[in-house]
Structures are given as C-alpha cells and as structure tokens.
C-alpha cells in the first residue's frame, strides 16, 4: 500500500513537474534579422521566412536536428522505390489544419503538384528537380499518396523536411497550417506574432497537448547590437548564429546563457578566378589555373590563427566542402591543409617562381600580386582577408583587399568575372551532397571558379561531374558516400576552393527557457519548439 502511494506520488509529481514550472500564457520572443519575404511555404528563400515555415509548417518527414536521422511526422510511413524515382506515403489520420479543415492525402498531392510547377521557381521545389519532365502525384485514397519523379532524386526522403503541406480546400490557403504555431498577427517591419495551433496533433509523454508555449513573438530587427542588448535586458530569450565577438561579450556577463555547440555546417573559403574569358592578365590566369600555385597559397595560410584571432577560438580549420558537423557525409580520412610556408615556397620554386626574400616573381618575371574581393561590412571576412594578406607576405605574395557591397560582388563573380580571388562563405542548410550539385557540376552557373563550362576544362572537373552524377543516380547510401568521399578528396587535392574555417555554431539562450537542446543544424535553438517552455522560476535548463 505504502509503495503504491509512493508510486502515485512520484507519478503525480512527474505529471505536475512541467505545468508547475511552465508559465501560463508564456510568450517566447526572439528576433528575425530581416523582414520575411513571404509566408507562402513554397516560395521560401530567406532565413526569416524559413523560420516562420519551420514554426508553422507541418511536414511529412522531419530531419531530427540532433540525431540527423529522419522521423515520421504527417507521414506515418513511406517507401522509396524504382531507384529513387518514386515515393509512397501513408499519412496520419484524423488531423486538421489550424482552421479546422481536415488533412488528407489530397492535400499532400495538391502541395506537391503546386510545388513542382516549374514556373513557380521555388527553391524547395527545385531541390527535387533532377531532370526535365512531369512529376506525377496521385492520392488513391485519403491516407495514401504516391509521387513519381521523371528521374531518380538522390536523398529523396530528406527533401520532404522542407515541404510544408498546404490545404487544398481551406479558404485561408497557406495561412492554414499543420505545424505547432499559426500566424496570428503581422505588422510589417515590426513583428510577426505566432499563436499555438489548437489543432496541432502532437502530445507529450503524459498525453498533454503540444506545444507548451502559447505564442511566439518574432521582432523584425536587423541591428545585431540591439538584439544583444535586448537579450541582456531579458526582452528576448534566444539568439541563433551569434557572432564570436558578441558571444565573448555575453559570456563575460552571463556565462550560463551562451553555448558553443561546435563546428557548424557553414564554411568560409577563397577561390581564384579560373574563367578563361575573364578580364584579367593572361599570366595571372596561368597562376590561378596551376594546382601547385593554389596548393602553395593554401599552405601559406595559417588557419589556426584565423580561428584564434578572428573567431576568438570559435571556429575550426576547414577541410573541404563538408563540415565535420555533417556526421554521415564528412570524409574522415581528410585533414585540414597544414600551415607550412616553407613547403609553399618549395612548391612555387618547383614551378619556376623565384623568391628574393621580399617579393615572389613568376618564371616570366612578374611579381606575384593579386586582389581579394569580399563583401563590405562583414568584419570577420575583412579581418580574415587582412590576416591572409600578412600570411602571404611571408612568401612574397602581395595581396590587396577590396570590399564591395553584395550586389557589386555578385556581379563581379557571376557576370563580369572581373576579380582575381574571392573570399566568401557557403551556408549549408542541407546535409545531403545533392544540395551542392550546382556548385560541383562544371556546367552550372554556381560552379564559382569557372562556371557554365560547355565541356569540363580539366580532367579532375570531369571526374567530379561523373562522381556527382553517379551519387545522384543511386539510392544506395553507402555507394553515394563512397562517390562523394572521392569528390571531397579531389577537391582537397586540387583546391579549386581553398577552405579556410568552419565557424562554430554559437547561440544564446535565456536561463528561463526550459527543455532547450541547441544543435548545429538550423534552427539551432528552437528545433524542438514544441517542447520548449518558459520557467516560472526563471531557470530552465537543458534536456
């Protein structure tokens, strides 16, 4: 009897633990760093709109941001067949959109048909587009839907993480959602208010309806200083992708609020212009096309110092196109290029370059001097460029730094090709290498160092093309991994992109917010939004 009472007491304590500490009517606040461009989940192409889509959209499959594994959401089960050309879903029963409209397989079919319209030019839809041709979507009954693509789509299931299902019948159109929150109010330029979706289907272990939070207020605020100030004052509870300097400043005042989660998926890199028609002198084109030259430059850069000085230790020397944070796809056999100016000089001397102790000259007597362009206003890139300038000075290379605003920079690197070296970053939102297809295919406009090639300019680019096509045409993950490992190795050997650092994922979380478990994948702090709650005691904690 006593044991029974104790068990009952323990059970009631466990049941009561969460609501006892959770604030009633609690509102989570954080900042959107730009105005959301759209609330239509199919047209999302900016971070602010992506945040709204994540918080409001219901998806068939969700990538668990912590384990990086796939989890069923609206799709109870799924089956990929015909080598990745076909996927069949069985959807959850008895669910409704935020306006009460019932959810059926017909909504999935409607969403996919709309998303795959080539005229929509949706980045989400384009991710599924591996070749020309019609996508066939059929919903034989309210619980099953079959989607057939004209050719195999690599990593097909994973792409559904971005597809928020919209209602085919609701008069509210895309405003009717299946996610934990729905848009309640929007004041352009000021804020977006999300309220709990009362029709949301998920429940916690105790059978309580999720999410715990009543609302989320997203203030549109571009100024990062103000964001930090507001966090310090307790006006907002979260900051994603914190800058290293802000992290350090906050760490001094509130060490419990900041977390360094380790290397993120994002990388910073430089690349030389190898476009044959670019308006730069031919002798420079010759340098930039030389693998030894690129390797020498790579070896002359002290990545460790970049991490220590520019990012205050909150970055790791980068290896290649995949960050170590990408658990499955990272090629573990590769190491960052070592800092070795002597080896760099030896390589250059083997190629006929001469170093007189101050200046490096090429075999034709031209002193080695070039400019790096980067985007103005990005203090980390400006600092990195300054440090690279010092590093290259040691091997007699003179580097000039040019900062341009973003449109001017894009014009130079994608239209006029009037640049020599470019320093930029790559933001990876998808773990799958197919998301980088347009970067690696030599025919693509995003093949930055030499885009839109009719035929691959080098044998190694031809080999990358072959391997990328091969990995995209099979659904055997092991085989795909083997192909992409080879791509990473070629990139490491040839250095078309000289990878510098992987910035760490830095976040700030108010101690009042409970159940937090920040991860490197976006959205870092609120990926488990349904389980977050604000504690009455002012102290939350981690899962």
């Amino acid at each position, binding site marked *: 009897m006593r044991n029974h009472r104790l068990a009952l007491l323990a059970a009631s304590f466990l049941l009561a633990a969460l609501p006892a500490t959770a604030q009633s009517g609690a509102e989570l606040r954080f900042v959107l760093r730009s105005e959301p461009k759209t609330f239509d989940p199919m047209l999302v192409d900016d971070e602010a709109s992506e945040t709204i889509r994540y918080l409001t959209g219901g998806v068939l499959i969700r990538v668990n941001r912590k384990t990086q594994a796939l989890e069923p959401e609206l799709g109870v089960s799924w089956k990929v067949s015909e080598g990745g050309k076909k996927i069949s879903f069985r959807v959850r029963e008895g669910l409704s959109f935020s306006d009460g409209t019932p959810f059926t397989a017909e909504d999935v079919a409607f969403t996919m048909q709309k998303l795959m319209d080539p005229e929509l030019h949706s980045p989400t839809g384009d991710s599924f587009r591996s070749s020309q041709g019609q996508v066939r979507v059929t919903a034989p009954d309210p619980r099953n839907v079959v989607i057939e693509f004209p050719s195999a789509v690599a990593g097909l299931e994973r792409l559904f993480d971005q597809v928020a299902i919209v209602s085919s019948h609701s008069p509210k159109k895309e405003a009717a959602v299946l996610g934990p929150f729905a848009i309640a109010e929007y004041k352009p330029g000021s804020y977006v208010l999300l309220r709990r979706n009362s029709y949301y289907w998920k429940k916690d272990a105790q059978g309580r309806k999720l999410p715990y939070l009543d609302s989320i207020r997203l203030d549109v*605020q571009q100024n990062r200083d103000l964001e930090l100030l507001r966090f310090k004052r307790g006006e907002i509870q979260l900051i994603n992708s914190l800058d290293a300097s802000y992290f350090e400043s906050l760490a001094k005042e509130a060490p419990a609020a900041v977390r360094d989660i380790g290397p993120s998926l994002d990388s910073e890199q430089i690349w030389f212009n190898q476009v044959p028609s670019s308006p730069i002198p031919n002798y420079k084109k010759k340098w930039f096309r030389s693998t030894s030259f690129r390797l020498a430059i790579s070896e002359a850069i002290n990545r460790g110092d970049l991490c220590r000085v520019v990012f205050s230790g909150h970055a790791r020397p980068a290896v290649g196109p995949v960050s170590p944070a990408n658990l499955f796809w990272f090629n573990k056999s590769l190491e960052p290029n070592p800092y070795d100016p002597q080896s760099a000089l030896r390589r250059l001397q083997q190629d006929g370059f001469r170093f007189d102790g101050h200046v490096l000259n090429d075999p034709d007597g031209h002193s080695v001097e070039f400019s790096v362009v980067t985007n103005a206003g990005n203090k980390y890139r400006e600092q990195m460029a300054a440090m690279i300038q010092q590093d290259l000075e040691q091997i007699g290379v003179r580097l000039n730094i040019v900062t341009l605003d973003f449109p001017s920079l894009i*014009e130079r690197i994608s239209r006029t090709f009037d640049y020599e070296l470019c320093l930029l970053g790559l933001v990876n939102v998808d773990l799958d290498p197919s998301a980088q297809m347009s970067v690696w295919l030599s025919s693509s406009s995003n093949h930055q160092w030499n885009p839109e090639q009719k035929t691959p300019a080098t044998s190694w680019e031809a080999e990358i093309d072959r391997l990328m096509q091969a990995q995209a045409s099979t659904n055997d993950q092991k085989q795909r991994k083997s192909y992409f490992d080879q791509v990473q190795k070629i990139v490491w050997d040839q250095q078309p992109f000289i990878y510098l650092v992987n910035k760490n994922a830095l976040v700030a979380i108010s101690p009042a917010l409970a159940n937090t478990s920040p991860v490197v994948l976006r959205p870092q702090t609120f990926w488990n939004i349904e389980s977050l709650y604000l504690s009455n005691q002012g102290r939350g904690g981690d899962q």
Partner: protein
Amino acid sequence: MWTWTGVLFRRIGTLLLTALLGGILGATLVRFAPGFGVDERELDTRLHEDSIQALRRSHSEERNVLQFYASYLAGAARGHLGVSHSFGRPVTQLFAERLPVTLRTVALGLAGGWMLGLLLALPVVRLRGWSFDFFASSTSGVFLCLPTAVVAILFLYFRGPVALAICVVVFPRVFRYARNILVQTYALPHVLTASAKGLSTLRILLWHIFPVAAPQILALSGVTVSIALGAAIPIEVICDSPGIGQLAWQAALSRDLPVLVNMTLFVTLVTLTANSAADLATKAFETRPV
C-alpha cells in the same frame, strides 16, 4: 505684378517637372550602379538552372531606363507603382505600411526641433546675457557637430524614441539660424523704440519681431523638412524603425529600382512642396500691407 493663381500654377508645374526629372535621374543612377540587375538568390545552390535564368530575366525589362520609366509612369497613372524585387511586394503596399511611421516621426521630430530651437533662441535675445548665449550656443554646437549616425547610435543604446533623435538633429540648425535672425531683428530701431516705450515682451515679439523675422524663419522651415527627412534614413536604419528610411536603405543595398524610383519621387515632391510652401508664405508676408 503677380497673382496668387499664376504663382501657384507655376510652382506646381515646376514641382512636377522637377520631380519627374528627379525620378528619371534616380532611375538612371540606379541602373548604372554596379551590381544592378543581380540577385543574391542566384547563389542559392538549391535553385535549378532554369530558375536562375528566370531570376536574371526578371531584371531585363529594367535595363532600358527610358522604357522602364515610361512604363512606370503609365503604371503610376493607373495607381500601380510597381513591385519591389527585394520584398516581392507591391510598392504601394510597402509605402502604405511604412509611410505613416516616417511621417509621424518626422512630424514629431520637426515640431520638437523647432520648439527646442526657438525656446533656446528667444531667451538669448531677450536676456542678452553672455552666459545663456554661451550655454545655448555651445549645446547646439555640440549637437550640430554630431553626425546623424552617431545620434542614432546614442538613441539606439539608450532606446530613445526615433522622433527625439530627429528632433536632436533638427534643433541646432533651427537654433543657429533663428538666433541670428532674432538678434538682428531685436537690434532694429523700431524694436528698440518699442522696447524703450515699455511695451510688453509678447507684444514686441508678436507685433514688431515676428513680422520682420517671419519670412526668413519660414524659409528655414522648408529646409528643415529635407533635413529631417534625410536624417530619418540613417536613424531608422540604425534604430530599426520600420519606416520608409529603412526601406530606402534596403532598396539601395539591393538595387531595387521600383522602390528607389518611387522613393526619389516622394522625397523630391516632399522637399519641393515644403520649400514652395515656405516660399509662398514668405512672399505672402513680404507683400502683406503693414
């Protein structure tokens, strides 16, 4: 001899012509600015080649400035001000959302700036003591030296209202100018005589100072409108105020031609209207029988 109707029509004609020329000048500058017609979405690795080409084509009709401007004016006549590239929304909608914010802050800032400027200028001429003059002149001098961006940063840090930041930018200019005019007017013989006869300060101000100083002070009012509007851009950007100043900045950064052309026309029209109104009021004062 001039008639009010003639002057009014001439003014409106000049105003419209200047605004139209300003619009085309603005469009031309944006069109030939580096980075025009490029979209950062082109770097999105998820986009299919067809979508990237579609993005590039979306700017093609803006490449011919005259053609763009003609079609813009035709649209504007029907109430369509174009669609913003960077926001993906109609410019009319963006202006409708943001204009009230800026108009309110600029109006409050102007009112505050004028009040503060005049409140400091009047005692200077009335008290005629060096200490207050020194205090007022040095205070306004300090604020005059502060760049608008610095004022905005201070207000950002102390979370001061945006209207007050505009007030801080406007008042030193008002004070300097108003002080000099009032000092000169107070030294006029008829004012000295009125003062010697023991007339009240208010009566001297209303009957002897104001009619003389008003034309010049009214001329200043037109100028302060453009000062306040110009200050609103950095202040709104730094203080994150969702007005048209912030919109203009974002549009400039993304070479958003439809927004920038409308913005140029709007700023030109407001500035010219304010200056014309000030000129007309000045004229009215000058021709008024005394």
